């Protein structure tokens, strides 16, 4: 049965692996550049006293690739659900070939288990390889940006896309089984997957783990770059990367400092800010750091 699965799906699997190789080559060629750029800009910025320019120029380099990689990892599970999961059974019903397939010397149970198992394995493998390549490539930009647990970033790094791919494939398979027609199954697999993803991102994940609040003193030893804007009303504190004062923080370590009773406006980049009340959330929670701020 496995040989038959391979016989039917080999073109798609080989195509997917070829695409992975192309992506791997692109990332392998551009990755070292990024490291070099990091070493010459961000790594030395404290010495040059100009970290904002350094980070901006670092993050802007290969910007298209950074966004492209993220979006690829974002969409690949959906594509897998649509083009691999949904047609798996739906096409058999639509073309009537289930009457050929299920009257061979293989029970329907084994047919389904093999198809589902092999499909899941390949989906997970392809998405996993892609995700880890992009994660490796983006490790420095991620570190500089300090947004590892942002909604978008979290979903396209490490093992998270693997889960999405397995879910999307199974959902597509189920849609095909119920609807028995390829196009409606593909459409509902896409809509269902996007819906669930959005729901998880916006409602489920922020509530999975209670955010950790902590207060830290703001004094001369706080490793923050502090600048005053006009009239001294707005105070911006920026810190990227690791906060030594709270050694366990890997990200979410940038802060926004606002004068009380004044909504913060256009100082600094929104993502690099935190409120003066100094309530920070620890990175262990996969929530957005900003999501836990309240003052």
């Amino acid at each position: 049965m496995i040989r038959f699965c391979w016989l039917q799906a080999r073109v798609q699997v080989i195509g997917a692996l070829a695409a992975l190789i192309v992506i791997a080559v692109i990332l392998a060629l551009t990755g070292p550049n990024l490291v070099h750029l990091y070493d010459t800009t961000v790594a030395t910025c404290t010495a040059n006293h100009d970290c904002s320019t350094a980070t901006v120029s670092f993050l802007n380099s290969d910007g298209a690739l950074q966004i492209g990689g993220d979006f690829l990892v974002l969409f690949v599970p959906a594509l897998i659900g649509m083009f691999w999961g949904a047609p798996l059974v739906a096409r058999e019903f639509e073309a009537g070939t289930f009457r050929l397939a299920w009257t061979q010397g293989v029970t329907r149970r084994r047919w389904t288990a093999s198809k589902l198992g092999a499909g899941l394995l390949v989906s997970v493998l392809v998405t996993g390889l892609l995700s880890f390549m992009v994660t490796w490539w983006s490790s420095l930009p991620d570190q500089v940006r300090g947004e590892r647990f942002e909604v978008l970033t979290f979903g396209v790094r490490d093992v998270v896309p693997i889960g999405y791919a397995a879910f999307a494939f199974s959902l597509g398979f189920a849609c095909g089984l119920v609807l028995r027609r390829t196009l409606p199954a593909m459409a509902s697999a896409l809509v269902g997957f996007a819906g669930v993803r959005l729901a998880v991102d916006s409602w489920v994940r922020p509530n999975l783990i209670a955010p950790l609040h902590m207060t830290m003193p703001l004094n001369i030893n706080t490793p923050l770059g502090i600048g005053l804007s006009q009239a001294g009303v707005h105070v911006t504190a920026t810190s990227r990367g690791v906060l030594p004062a709270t050694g366990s923080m890997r990200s979410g370590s940038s802060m926004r400092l606002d004068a009380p009773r004044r909504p913060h406006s256009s100082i600094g980049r929104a993502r690099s800010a935190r409120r003066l009340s100094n309530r920070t959330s620890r990175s262990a929670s996969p929530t957005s750091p900003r999501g836990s701020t309240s003052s």
Partner: protein
Amino acid sequence: MTAVIETNGLAKRYGRKWALQDCTIAVPAGKVVGLVGPNGAGKTTLLQLAVGLVEPSAGSMTVLGARPGEGAAQLERVGFVAQDTPTYASMSVANHLRMGSYLNTSWDKALAGRRVQQLGLDPAQKAGALSGGQRAQLALTLAIAKRPELLILDEPVAGLDPLARREFLQSLMEEVAEHGTSVVLSSHLVADLERVCDYLVLLIASHLQLAGEVNELLASHHRLSGPRRDLRTLPSDQEIIEESHTDKQSILLVRPNGPVLDPTWTVTPVTLDDVVLAYMGRARDSEQSRGPGLGVVR
């Protein structure tokens, strides 16, 4: 006489519509069985029940002594060519044969290869690019090469032109003669089956109407023609299947229990077509007289 297909009160319902009702039959082994009936009579349902693609709503069925579609071994013992002879359009002929060998332990590779060669099929060609006749032959090859004990074909020649029809049935009969396989094939045209079948099952409006050896059916039915007369004067052991009258003449198709002795009748033999059409006409008439929803109970 062992039975390849045995059913007892078999019935299948789709929603509120009965596709097959109260079907009790024993199809003997080693025969080429023609399953005849108008479109929508329940032929496909009966055959799909026999290969385990659908589950019965009531009654029971055994195929080769086991539950249909139960386990891989049972699936291998029954070859099936489904309606419209489905194949994977994007898969080549050679890959179809590969599929057959991967999925059936009993696969006869030499037989499959020989048949494809004889048919002149290009192994590299995609099944979607084959003609209807070629596709039917490919589907038949897949079903035959797993060396089944029972071969079930659902309207295999319905979409074929007369020449392809003849070639298909010819190659079917050659394989059957060689391996002694039991065959059940369905059609809504008696003409397709007349030459190949030695057993006939007639299904009309989800009910079994008639089942028997073709020779016996032909021998037991007669066409009577003679001067017009009142049918109530006929002997009670003569079952009238069909009657038609002109001003002066009555023509009947009867199934007598003994010889027809009345000298006023001219007795002529019947063809299979005559018998089937007579039963179809009778079923339709009785359905009309009983109103919709009621079928004929044999």
